[in-house]
């Protein structure tokens, strides 16, 4: 069978290419030239289809008298947005500002969600590896159930749970002093507003920069002299201490504002709306199930001999974990973890289904009001593409840092 194939293949191709001219037969068999012809054909076909669709769109838009372009962004939006943390927004503001608020809301839920999902996912992943039979069983039941139910169903479930089954503010569940769970969401104590908090972002950046410098200095010193330095605790103190000190020095009150029940709802403190709480709960629990599997795979991937060797060298459990096990596990964990973070960010767009005003939800309202469907969807896609590409660029850079460096040194 095998020897017959080449002839068949060649004759088949000759037939497909049509009757060749006298010198053309050889040219048709030249793979380079043939590749060129295929590619030109493909590019031409794609361009032609693209041109056809675009010309249709232009015609249709002209027929419906919809002006294309992004001029509508400057017009008055005229709709209210339920959650406007961080930035102020009123219905009289422009569409551009409304979309900006939506984007900020997307980032808010994605940032909190990524941190929480990583913590929960790591716990569950380690739980599945636990020597304790009950813990391992519970963790694997969690993973199996959560992974096999669509996220949107889970979001609806949590939203129904919070907005219908939770009691009203008057008989709210009291979780901790000042933390209440009711069908209006979750309220909790929060520092009183004060101008001193305007310094917080700058102080955070300074603290992070100082922590980074301290880590670098400690690593250099250890490389030079072998003396160790408590890097971890220093970095934590710098990261949190600098902002705290800055805010206190600027005269922020050291008091938390507690939510108080008045009339039909709580006032004071900070609130997580039912929409936000449902979205966050759904995203965190769903993504954590996937992260748990990644963490489990990462831990299993570290050879037992590595752990035993670390103990044999006299490293303490803590040091063995930080210096031997984690760096190797992270190498396996980071790439799939990155795609889970991206998934969480993209999945936050399901907010539109339960009424949390994220970017997609605001853009959807904008499209409905202005009829600028192409521009609205282009904005959504562009923003998510930018976020996806930058998160993956950042994580790739990190991945390069933790990747095996043996080849370069040897």
């Amino acid at each position, binding site marked *: 069978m095998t020897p017959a194939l080449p002839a068949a293949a060649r004759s088949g191709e000759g037939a497909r290419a049509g009757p060749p001219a006298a010198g053309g037969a050889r040219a048709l068999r030249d793979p380079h030239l043939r590749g060129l012809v295929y590619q030109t054909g493909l590019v031409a076909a794609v361009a032609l289809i693209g041109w056809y669709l675009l010309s249709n769109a232009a015609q249709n838009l002209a027929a419906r008298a919809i002006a294309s372009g992004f001029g509508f962004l400057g017009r008055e939006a005229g709709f209210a947005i339920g959650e406007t943390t961080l930035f102020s927004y009123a219905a009289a503001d422009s569409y551009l500002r409304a979309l900006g608020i939506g984007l900020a809301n997307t980032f808010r839920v994605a940032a909190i969600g990524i941190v929480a999902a990583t913590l929960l996912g790591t716990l569950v992943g380690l739980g599945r*590896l636990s*020597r304790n039979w009950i813990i391992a069983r519970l963790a694997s039941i969690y993973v199996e159930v959560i992974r096999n139910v669509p996220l949107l169903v889970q979001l609806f479930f949590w939203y129904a749970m919070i907005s219908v089954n939770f009691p009203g503010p008057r008989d709210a569940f009291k979780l901790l002093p000042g933390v209440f769970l009711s069908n209006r969401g979750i309220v909790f104590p929060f520092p009183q507003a004060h101008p001193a908090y305007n310094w917080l972002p700058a102080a955070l950046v300074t603290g992070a920069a100082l922590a980074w410098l301290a880590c670098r200095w400690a690593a250099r010193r250890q490389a030079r002299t072998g003396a160790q330095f408590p890097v971890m605790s220093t970095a934590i103190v710098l990261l949190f201490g600098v902002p705290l000190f800055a805010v206190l020095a600027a005269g922020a009150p050291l008091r938390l504002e507690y939510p108080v029940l008045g009339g039909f709802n709580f006032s004071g403190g900070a609130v997580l709306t039912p929409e936000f709480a449902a979205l966050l709960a759904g995203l965190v629990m769903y993504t954590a199930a996937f992260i748990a599997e990644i963490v489990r795979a990462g831990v299993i991937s570290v050879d037992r001999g590595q752990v035993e060797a670390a103990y044999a060298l006299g490293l303490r459990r803590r040091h063995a974990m930080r210096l031997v096990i984690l760096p190797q596990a992270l190498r396996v964990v980071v790439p799939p973890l990155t795609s889970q973070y991206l998934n969480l960010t993209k999945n936050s767009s399901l907010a539109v289904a339960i009424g949390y005003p994220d970017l997609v939800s605001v853009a959807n309202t904008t499209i409905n009001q202005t009829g600028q469907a192409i521009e609205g969807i282009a904005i959504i896609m562009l923003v998510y593409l930018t976020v996806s590409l930058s998160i993956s660029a950042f994580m790739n850079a990190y991945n390069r840092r933790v990747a095996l460096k043996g080849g370069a040194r040897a």
Partner: protein
Amino acid sequence: MSARADVNPMGNPTGNPMLRRGRGALAWLRRNLFSSATNTLLTLAALYALWKVVPPLLDWAFVEAVWDAPGGRACREAQGACWAFIADKHRFILFGTYPFEQHWRPGAAILVFVALYGVSALRSCWRPWLALAWLAGLAMIGLLLWGGAFGLPYVEDERWGGLVLTLVLATFGIAFAFPLSILLALGRTSALPAVRVLCVAYIELIRGVPLISVLFMASVMMPLFLPEGLMIDKLLRAQVALILFAAAYLAEAVRGGLQAIPRGQYEAAEALGLSYWKMTTLVILPQALKIAIAPLVNTFIGLFKDTSLVVVIGLFDLLSTVKTALNEPAWSGHGVEAYLFASFVYFVFCNAMSRFSQRLERDLAHGQRAQAPQAGRAG
């Protein structure tokens, strides 16, 4: 094998070596629940949490639950779950707005779907006739749902809904996205730069945006891009969006398989003088797809779950019918029960797929391990 005896299924050593020995329930308990102080504490904490959560949950779901409540009155007074809602609305949830007296047709279609899945899961049935069985099965489903022949009255697809619509979207989605994804994956690994660039751009573009934006594009933007007068109905537009979306993810799974094929296989095929398509279909793909089965099935599960997103563009899939049934004042406020039921249905299908993929992966791994020494001996 003896080395595995003192290692629990998770691959961890089981603590104190004195406890590893022994059989019977007591030894098992000591080994798995009370091997150390921390372990004992964890066990007690977990047992306490279970004791606090499970009995009230069982109480709610079974003991206090209402199974039959005409008009939903009994549910409003009861303390437990209102399963009467599901009992009352199950026809609507399963079949949507399909004409009531014709409900046996989508019911039969669901059975055909399940039969097709079942046959495809048996490896002994992986023969060329399976493709024919699929063609025949899908044609039969189309006939059952649309009708218009053999005395079945015609039902336009706007009225399809419920579980059967979910199965239609998922199955046709997989059936069309899979071949497309193979082409995309081949394009991405192609030696021709223009083909490669186009495929990479498509895959990365789709994977970089949420499915919801692709669905919006299909429902809002696609009509603008078609010539005037040509209208494609909503179901088909959503189906196309799901296919285009799933193809990009499946393509990455196929590419994983392609990359696992050693260079020698390509070189050997080229040395035999095979053309590109002969090499691909006879040598490369059969091996690559076998390697890619597990990630492919995972992507299938993802697509099955993703079909639930069509609720945001107003199609009546399973989740959408559940949500709509809740709008009735008599039953509003039973969202938790309703979504638990929807979760259960999705879970049954997804869990079956995931079990199947795990078993298949194990079988194929055994197959490879068993074959390797043979190949060595032959060489």
